[in-house]
């Protein structure tokens, strides 16, 4: 394992709500003294408290003149790289994830109890696809949203927004820490989109003999305003009893104008996706609790910056 904390430049890593793992890119100038090559395990630690910020495997390297550049992924990378055959038969989601990880030789970290029963055959599927499919089923049935995160070599499953960040920024050793609203930049961007909006949901059975509508829910007011945007969800026979929940949870999730605000700020290692963050900046028009959707961190020339995208909770 190679510690790159004090010797690399142009570090950048990001946490995204739609991706499974973290990607870290970094450079060495002049000489690759550590003999970092694709396959090397690298670790990045916080200088102050030695907390591990990133641990993962170098996947690609390049050299341009005297600059060596590397791209590394955390161990979730492996979840996208193999195909697997696995069958679940009325297995609860927690056990299903544990069984999958065991088959892959990945250690299960903290996985909350999710009672949703999974009955499905996966043949030549990517482990990451299976994991997403399981948490999708949990969401459809219960309305609770979960995500995955590598914690070193273990895979944790966490509920979205269950962790609150109390990000305090220390600008200098002799100054008291300040809150996020004191370190956000001015050029934030506010985005709104109806691109993924759905205001009518139909749940149908996916039996091979015949297809029938089990449930349909819609929001007439939204349809009147935005036009009909309909989603059809197929469910297995075993989930028919859940069709009402599935329809309502999907409508609740998709029947809205998606908003996000991109905020440049000073860097803080705790700024990660799916954490709750309190911001109190009336000048920026950001007051209240926000959910971090993504966080991109850069550390270059002794300056640590981050850009976070948040949505109102």
């Amino acid at each position, binding site marked *: 394992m190679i510690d790159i904390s004090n010797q690399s430049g142009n570090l950048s890593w*990001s946490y*995204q709500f*739609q*991706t499974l793992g973290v990607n870290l890119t970094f450079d060495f100038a002049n000489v690759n003294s550590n003999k970092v090559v694709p396959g090397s395990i690298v670790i990045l630690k916080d200088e102050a408290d030695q907390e591990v910020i990133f641990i993962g495997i170098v996947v690609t390297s390049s050299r341009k003149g005297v600059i060596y550049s590397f791209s590394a992924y955390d161990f979730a990378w492996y979840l996208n790289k193999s195909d697997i*055959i*696995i*069958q679940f*038969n009325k297995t609860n989601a927690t056990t299903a994830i544990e069984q999958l990880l065991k088959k892959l030789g990945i250690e299960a970290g903290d996985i909350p109890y999710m009672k949703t029963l999974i009955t*499905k*055959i996966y*043949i*030549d*599927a990517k482990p990451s696809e299976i994991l997403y499919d399981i948490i999708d089923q949990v969401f459809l049935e219960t309305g609770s949203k979960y995500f995955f995160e590598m914690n070193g070599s273990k895979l944790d499953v966490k509920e979205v927004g269950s962790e609150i960040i109390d990000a305090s920024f220390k600008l200098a050793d002799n100054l008291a820490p300040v809150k996020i609203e004191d370190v956000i930049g001015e050029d934030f961007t506010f985005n709104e989109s109806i691109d993924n909006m759905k205001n009518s949901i139909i749940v149908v059975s*996916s*039996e*091979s003999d015949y297809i029938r509508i089990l449930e349909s829910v819609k929001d007439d007011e939204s349809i009147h305003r935005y036009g009909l945007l309909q989603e059809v969800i*197929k469910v*297995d*026979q075993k989930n028919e009893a859940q069709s009402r929940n599935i329809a309502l949870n999907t409508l609740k999730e998709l029947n809205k104008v998606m908003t996000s605000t991109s905020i440049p700020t000073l860097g803080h290692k705790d700024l990660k996706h799916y954490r709750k963050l309190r911001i109190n900046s009336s000048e920026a028009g950001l007051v209240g609790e926000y959910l971090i959707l*993504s966080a*991109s961190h850069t550390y270059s020339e002794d300056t640590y910056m981050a850009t976070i*995208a948040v949505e109102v909770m």
Partner: protein
Amino acid sequence: MDSIIDLAKEFRKRDPKKILGPIVGRVLSPLPDLQVSILSDQVVLSADKLYITEKLYKDTETVFLNGDLILDDITKSVNGELTMTKEILKKDEKVMLVPTENGQEFFIIDKVRKAK
């Protein structure tokens, strides 16, 4: 950054979907609690995931008889029903399966054996 990920996801959506073709299975237990395993027993399909052709389902056959039954030099007139029971799918026999579109249910087409 987000738009790059959106683009990547769009590409991903267009990845060819892996579709399992016809596959040979092994009967683990016969009807009525039919179980068939595929992929070296890694996946076990129970009766609720299986469709079966009429030919394979008929485990009894009833025929009406009315006429003369001749056995060597004995002639006997018969009038009635004859029911024959046969076990069609036996343990360890091989069957050909075709999956449904979502790969979650299978049709047993017929019994098969390797030609050579």
